C-alpha cells in the first residue's frame, strides 16, 4: 500500500509550484503531504506498539522457560543471555546501529541543505546535497541489510519467533519507506540534471524533504524504543 501511495506522491509532486488561488495560500501538494504524514503516524504507531507488545510477550514466555519459545531462537547461547539479562539487548549491536542512526540524521541535514540550495537557485549544490542525501540513505539501507543478515545468523528469523516477526516487520517497513525516499531523491536528481528542477520547483524538493525527515523521525523513535530500551 505504501508503495503505491508514495509513488503517486512523486508523480503528483510536479504541480508543486502552481500559482492558483487556494484557500490557504498553500499548494495542494503540501497540504496533502502533511495529511499523508499524519496518517503515517498511525501506521508506525501501530507497528511500534505491535513490536512492544510482541517483545513483552516473547520475553515473558522466554523468562518463564517456555520450551517452544526457547526453541524459537536458533541459538542457545543467545537465549541464555537473554534469560540472564531479562531483555533482548544481547541481540543488538548498539555501536553499529548508532552509526547508522547517525548516518540517517546526517542525511536529514543534507536534505534540508538541498532544499535551501534549490530555493536559492544554487543548482550545483542542489545536486550535491541531493546526491549526498540519497547516498547516506543508501548507506543506512545497506547497514540494515547487513544487520538483518547478522541477526539471521544469530538465530533470529522472521518465521521462527514472535520477536523476529515483529522486529523484521517494523524495521522492514521503515526500510521500505527509506528506499522509496531514495527513489524519489534519485528522480529529483535526474530532473535536476535535465535542468527541470529549478527554483520554481523548490517546493517539490521541500515535499520530498518532508517525507524524508518524517522517515528520519520515525527512526529516531525506533532507535530509542527498540534498540536503546530493550
Amino acid at each position: 500500500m505504501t508503495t503505491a501511495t508514495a509513488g503517486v506522491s512523486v508523480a503528483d509532486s510536479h504541480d508543486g509550484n502552481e500559482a492558483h488561488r487556494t484557500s490557504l495560500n498553500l499548494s495542494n501538494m503540501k497540504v496533502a503531504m502533511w495529511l499523508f504524514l499524519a496518517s503515517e503516524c498511525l501506521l508506525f504507531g501501530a507497528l511500534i506498539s505491535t513490536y512492544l507488545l510482541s517483545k513483552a510477550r516473547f520475553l515473558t514466555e522466554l523468562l518463564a522457560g517456555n520450551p517452544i519459545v526457547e526453541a524459537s531462537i536458533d541459538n542457545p547461547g543467545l537465549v541464555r543471555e537473554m534469560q540472564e539479562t531479562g531483555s533482548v539487548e544481547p541481540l543488538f549491536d548498539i555501536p553499529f546501529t548508532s552509526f547508522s542512526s547517525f548516518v540517517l540524521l546526517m542525511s536529514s541535514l543534507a536534505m534540508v541543505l538541498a532544499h535551501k540550495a534549490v530555493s536559492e537557485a544554487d543548482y550545483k549544490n542542489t545536486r550535491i546535497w541531493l546526491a549526498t542525501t540519497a547516498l547516506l540513505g543508501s548507506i543506512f539501507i545497506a547497514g540494515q541489510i547487513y544487520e538483518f543478515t547478522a541477526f539471521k545468523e544469530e538465530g533470529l528469523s522472521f518465521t521462527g519467533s514472535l520477536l523476529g516477526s515483529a522486529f523484521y516487520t517494523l524495521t522492514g517497513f521503515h526500510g521500505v519507506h527509506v528506499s522509496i525516499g531514495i527513489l524519489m531523491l534519485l528522480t529529483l536528481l535526474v530532473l535536476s540534471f535535465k535542468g527541470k528542477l529549478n527554483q520554481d520547483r523548490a517546493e517539490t524538493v521541500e515535499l520530498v524533504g518532508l517525507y524524508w525527515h518524517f522517515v528520519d523521525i520515525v527512526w529516531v523513535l525506533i532507535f530509542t524504543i527498540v534498540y536503546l530500551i530493550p
Partner: protein
Amino acid sequence: MSDTAVKASADVVDDAHDSHAHPTETQYWLVFLILAVITAFEVLWSYLGLSGPLLVVPLLAMMVVKFVIVAGVFMHLWFDMKMLNGKLFTLAFASGIVIALSVYTVVVATYEFNV
C-alpha cells in the same frame, strides 16, 4: 493582462514564502550538531547499565527533543506555523500524532492494568 497577472501572482506566492524566513545554512549545521550530540548522549546513557525509569525516562525525553527539533526545524514546522493558515496543516499533523500517541499508549496500558 496575463503577464502582469502572473507577475502579481508570483509576488503573492513569494511573499508567502518569505514571510517566514527559513534558517541559514549555519543554523542548519548547528541544529544537526545538537542532534548528533543528543544521539551520542543517548547511546552513552544506554551504556551506563541503568535500568527501570532511570534508563527509560531520560532516553524518552531525548527522543522527544530530537523529534521536536527535526519536525520543527528541518520540516519547517516552526516557521510554517507562523505563516498565514500554516496552523491548519500543523493542526492536522498534530492531531495525527496526538491520536496515535493516545490510542497506542492506552492499548499498552490496558495490558499493564490487566487486573
